């Protein structure tokens, strides 16, 4: 398979990295030679220094043999022209583009198969905003990952000291809570465990549990993690992400949004309804206190500046905000921000890369989501006919070491497996696995 990526930024880089591990031929086009040199040094790919809308660069990249074109430059217009080129001149079947401007993004006619034929268009700000709202709705969660149109979610919970399950054996927890529950992974002191029934839970563990959407509240309660959806929200930064979050949440919660630029404030107040738009510096202590930060349930730092987001979130936390969320684009900063005590750190670029990767992935592995700083993955895999696991009992223990089935999706039904379940062909499985076990899982199932 050959994939052409236009744009060697963080998104392009992350996707290229995924793809080269899969053995795909990747060619990246970018106009910035320095960026390309850096990418080419780290990844086994070909690079071409040219404008993203340059037909001869496409030709050089072997566009006539390409299966997928990914346009992820910073410019919507370049991305669209690149897709148009790919369609008109090289008949590339699949074209995926990052489109930010809502006027383009929501324009079905423009992006539809009759015209640009971009499938899908990805709006990173919108995706990031959606990820943030999931966290707002599940304030006890440090991470929320949806599967099967979000009917089932994998949620990361941090176990507090006073939790009823603190110090309990996993085997005992099932009987104690009297429900089917599988803990897919435990993140403890920078390492990740794929647990068996014999493992214990400790204070401070982050546990990843697959849960049906409607049962999330119940499970959270029984784990002793409090949580009603946030009612009072403060947002730093009135850019697109802040705007999307506010417009999605303003009917469910009180929202204050702080923006430094007057023009943006005007835009926000014009386009938002109930949201209170404040003109000022979101990292200004006085302003935060005046606006009653101590009463805020969730503080979201989503300006365009990583450093500001981290510092402002720390300040808000110190001043009494119950939960702080920070958006950080640089992948290198993410573990750092976690260590400083920011409960949730999201990277719009990583989210975008992850989503695009799901679309590109072919075959039986439907998706692959990294958790716990990339030490483990949640995979969604379709069981193939040839797999030796078909018809076998889970109890038999034929599943590879350091991996566990968290849920079985069978014709619209979701089963949280017990030892008695039997795997059938065409089942979709949600699997937790350490990085090194992924190949073994793929081998068994595909």
């Amino acid at each position, binding site marked *: 398979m050959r994939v052409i990526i236009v744009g060697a930024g963080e998104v392009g880089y992350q996707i290229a990295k995924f793809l*080269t591990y899969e*053995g795909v031929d990747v060619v990246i086009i970018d106009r910035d030679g320095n960026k390309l040199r850096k990418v080419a040094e780290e990844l086994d790919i*070909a690079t071409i220094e040219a404008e993203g809308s340059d037909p001869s660069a496409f030709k050089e990249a072997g566009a006539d043999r390409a299966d997928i074109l990914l346009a992820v430059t910073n410019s919507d217009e370049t991305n669209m022209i690149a897709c148009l080129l790919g369609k008109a001149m090289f008949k590339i079947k699949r074209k995926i583009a990052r489109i930010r401007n809502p006027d383009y993004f929501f324009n079905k006619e423009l992006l539809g198969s009759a015209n640009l034929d971009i499938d899908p268009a990805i709006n990173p700000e919108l995706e990031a905003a959606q990820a943030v709202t999931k966290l707002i709705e599940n304030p006890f969660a440090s991470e929320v990952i949806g599967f099967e149109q979000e009917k089932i979610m994998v949620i990361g919970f941090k176990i507090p000291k006073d939790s009823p399950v603190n110090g309990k054996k996993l085997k005992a927890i099932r009987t104690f809570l009297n429900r089917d529950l599988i803990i897919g992974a435990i993140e403890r002191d920078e390492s990740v465990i794929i647990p068996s029934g014999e493992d214990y839970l400790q204070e401070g563990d982050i546990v990843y549990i697959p849960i049906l959407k409607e049962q999330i509240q119940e499970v959270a309660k029984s784990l002793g993690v409090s949580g009603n959806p946030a009612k009072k929200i403060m947002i730093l930064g009135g850019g697109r992400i802040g705007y999307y979050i506010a417009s999605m949440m303003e009917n469910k919660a009180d929202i204050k949004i702080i923006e430094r630029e007057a023009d943006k404030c005007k835009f926000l107040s014009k386009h938002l309804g109930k949201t209170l738009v404040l003109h000022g510096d979101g990292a200004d202590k006085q302003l935060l206190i005046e606006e009653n930060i101590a009463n805020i349930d969730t503080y979201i730092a989503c300006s365009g500046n990583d450093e500001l987001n981290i510092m402002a979130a720390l300040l808000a936390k110190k001043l009494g905000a119950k939960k702080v969320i920070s958006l950080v684009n640089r992948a290198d900063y993410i573990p750092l921000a976690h260590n400083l005590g920011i409960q949730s750190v999201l990277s719009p670029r990583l989210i975008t890369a992850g989503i695009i990767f799901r679309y590109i992935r072919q075959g039986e592995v439907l998706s692959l989501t990294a958790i716990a700083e990339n030490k483990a993955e949640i995979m969604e895999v379709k069981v193939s006919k040839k797999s030796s696991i078909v018809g076998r009992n889970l109890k038999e223990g034929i599943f590879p070491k350091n991996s566990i089935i968290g849920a079985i999706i069978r014709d619209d039904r979701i089963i949280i497996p017990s030892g008695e379940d039997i795997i059938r062909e065409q089942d979709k499985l949600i699997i937790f696995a350490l990085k090194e076990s992924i190949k073994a899982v793929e081998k068994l199932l595909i």
Partner: protein
Amino acid sequence: MNFKTVFNIVGIILIILSIFMAVPVLVSIINKSGDLPALGASLLLTLFSGTLMLSLTKQYRHEEIMYREAFMIVTLSWISVSLFGSLPYVFTASVNSFTDAFFESMSGFTTTGASIFSDVESLPAGLLFWRSMTQWIGGMGIIVFALAILPIIGTGGMQLFKAEVPEISVDKLRPRIIDTAKALWLIYAGITLLIVLLYYLAGMEMYDAICHAFTTISTGGFSTKNLSIGYFNSPLIDYISSLGMFLGGANFALYFYFMRGNYKIFLKNAEFRFYFFVVLLTILIISLHLRFSYYESFEESFRFGVFQVISIITTTGYATADYVKWSSFAQLLLLIIMFFGGMIGSTAGGIKQVRIYLMTKQIYREFFQLIHPRAVLSLKLDDKFLTKETLGSIWGFVFLAIFVCALSSIAMTATGLDIVTSVSTVISAMNNVGPALGEAGPSQNYASIPVFGKWILIFCMLAGRLEYYTVLILLTPAFWKK
């Protein structure tokens, strides 16, 4: 520096080398040449050492290879390969000392072709085959071969590739390094086969045809005959050999694009045109000169002129004529074109045509600028603009080559050799040519060079093959600083 990673990969390289060694073992069995125990022992010892290194460092396989490791791995691989490749010489007791064996082996793998043997025809068939084969392995590079067959080296492969294959040619043929390396080796093997066939049809025995094809395409220059190609005394073989060397001196990427259907690539590529022009011009000058100073007929002058010019400029080092007997003008011209070498991405040594081409172009541009101080000029190579850094690195490279040449030549004279022999052997070794002038001319050999001198030349051959930086960087304090 992660030495476990380094030794892990060197171990892999040695295992690959031992597999190559199976070929001369086979040749020995077929020819019943009596060197089977020596070759077999070499194979087993190499295999054992490689496996041992690999098993001692097993868990480090997937460590990423950084710049330092890459330089270390490549240099150490070449040294180890030469070391283990010298075992057959040692075990057959065909050399007088370890230095001679290592010299011969290094000369083989670096495709230099300088030999300490005065009578190669007395060597057993298996050993002689191995001697030719070392050049074939070294021509395209054993690291590139490892990258072509082993995906496990992975992302770090790029660093290795760059450390073994010079920088400007890293235009990858295919997006992935493994496919690029595979393509290069397939083309290499294909052209080798073609040359075997041509030699055979022109009247060589199959054994000689294969051995000579190995050392022709790799621009190595080892022969199975004491008189080199001159032994066959056939104009047809001379011309086939010239063609083969010329092909080996061209960028292998061009063959790749040619086979992809880009038939005009040879006409369009500026470096190839320059290479062709330089070769043609030197042939004309030398042939004409020879006609009036040495040979009686135009036919002879042309035949020996073509062969010797191509043999020297592609840094092969075959001989059909003892050019030491030619005029000083012809000798000095040959010595100078040793520096030119072949194209980038070829199997030839030397400074490489593209660097000479760009330097010439830049100097011309400087003149032009003096006349038109306000002119805005840019330097292009095949429609690609070159940055100041690229040009700077070319001048740096050439300076480094001259520096190595000067220092090594001085060291050579310290052994008591005369100036012509000292300078010419160094130039010949660092450009991977083989024969030199003076006492080391095409009809003589390196046996009489003092031991210390041989080690200097061994260093020159290795440094030259890896284009100086990769080897010399290991000698800088900054490389070892943590």
